[in-house]
């Protein structure tokens, strides 16, 4: 672990300028992933950490059917927001299914989006073959034991997982990410924020070095829409997902008028299941429809021996959550 300079930022523009000008600088928010990877695993080696936790990026406001959430709002704070419980309850479910109460008090919403897409091999610096750590070095996970790995968006170059629960309903809701850079601000839909690993697994999203997430905007569900989040894991609590699914359905007279579906635990990024949504739209809310949607959602998976089980598990997770949300008996 190399020494780093610690800088406490008190102004957004100054923080962005500082990190943008220094290729060795990184932002520090809740620290629950960053400090783990810097201090404990030693796989990130910033020369300077810019602590942004005192920046004024904290409020939650509600207007025009959109929830505006400051990037430094914590997971517990967002879970406690009454509008979240009322209008996007599956966001609350996903938040409370993630991590532990202690970590949720620390972890910020911006940091949750930016938690590294990571796996055990990435975290182990004695493993030399990791395209995410060292581009071009290969992928040890594809040939070694694997389990908590991605099957969608994955390839022989990288099968590391984006492990967020929160991002699953957020990507289903077409959340927008507001970003501040040295040359101004821009907004990117969360569905276009992450990039597939391809041949450069070290590049995980569209942010340029020094750009800072300042806020996310969550479009609320139309009144009458029902939603739910189902997380399947090896133990009952405080564990990453093997598979998860976030679903929101508006059903009128037995027909699905509007459907939103996204998957966790399976993707190299929070996975919006657009093909499945197309099958659900306008279809009768039946088990048969749900099974067809689930099969479409898994499309063309890339599996290794240790992750092959996730295809059927994810399909069953989707079918279960669609039954639960719709109230249609299985």
């Amino acid at each position: 672990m190399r020494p780093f300079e610690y800088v406490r930022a008190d102004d957004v523009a100054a923080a962005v300028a500082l990190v943008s000008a220094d290729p060795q600088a990184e932002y520090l928010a809740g620290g629950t992933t960053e400090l783990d990877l810097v201090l404990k695993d030693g796989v990130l080696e910033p020369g300077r950490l810019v602590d942004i936790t005192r920046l004024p990026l904290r409020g939650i406001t509600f207007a025009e059917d959109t929830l505006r959430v400051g990037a430094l709002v914590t997971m517990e704070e967002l879970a406690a927001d009454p509008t979240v419980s009322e209008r996007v309850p599956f966001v609350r479910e996903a938040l409370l299914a993630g991590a532990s109460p202690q970590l949720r008090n620390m972890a910020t919403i911006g940091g949750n989006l930016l938690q590294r897409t990571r796996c055990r091999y990435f975290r182990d610096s004695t493993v030399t073959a990791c395209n995410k750590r060292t581009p071009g070095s290969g992928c040890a996970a594809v040939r070694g034991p694997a389990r908590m790995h991605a099957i969608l968006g994955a390839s022989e170059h990288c099968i590391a997982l984006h492990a967020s629960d929160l991002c699953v309903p957020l990507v289903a809701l077409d959340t927008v990410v507001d970003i501040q850079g040295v040359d101004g601000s821009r907004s990117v839909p969360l569905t276009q924020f992450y990039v597939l690993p391809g041949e450069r697994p070290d590049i995980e999203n569209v942010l340029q070095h020094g750009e800072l997430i300042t806020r996310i905007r969550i479009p609320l569900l139309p009144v009458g829409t029902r939603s739910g989040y189902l997380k399947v894991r090896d133990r009952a609590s405080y564990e990453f997902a093997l598979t998860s699914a976030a679903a929101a359905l508006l059903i009128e007279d037995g027909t699905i008028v509007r459907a939103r579906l996204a998957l966790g635990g399976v993707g190299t990024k929070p996975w919006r299941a657009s093909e499945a949504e197309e099958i659900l739209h306008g279809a009768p809310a039946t088990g048969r429809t749900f099974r067809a949607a689930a099969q479409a959602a898994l499309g063309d998976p890339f599996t290794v021996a240790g992750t092959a089980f996730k295809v059927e598990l994810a399909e069953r997770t989707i079918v279960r959550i669609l039954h639960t949300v719709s109230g249609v008996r299985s």
Partner: protein
Amino acid sequence: MENTVSADTYVDVMLRVNGCARRLRLDSRVTLLDALRDELDLTGTKKGCDQGACGACTVLLDGKRVLSCLTLAAQCEGREVTSIEGLATDGRLHPVQEAFIRHDGFQCGYCTPGQIMSAVALLQEGRAGSDEEIREFMSGNLCRCGAYPNIVAAIREVAGRGSE
């Protein structure tokens, strides 16, 4: 850690620990956990996994439970830290400490300070409505001796639900 650190990798920090202002000059890599144990001799807070997985290092930061192993001491400038040593008042144990003794909520005791800090926060959060809720909201604290049933009983008692 490497010993070749330059001046700009040190930080001056003022922590308020259990009500007392403590001024420290630290390597910027020092966690709140190591500052408490190694600099302030407050060894009640335990280092278990040191990687955010076990909860043994749980303390309250401005009244909220956090993991001190994944918090830089420098991030806590001017903030209020409560460790297990800060729970007793005037020589009297905190009700949660008394309940852990009464219900035998530990075996080896190593995870106990973290369990108690987490339980104190859980009660303040109003998360003791049922045994199921207690278990869910204590899930960030592991006990390898398996004292969980007695830990839940202790928390249930302090929450005023007795032995229902």
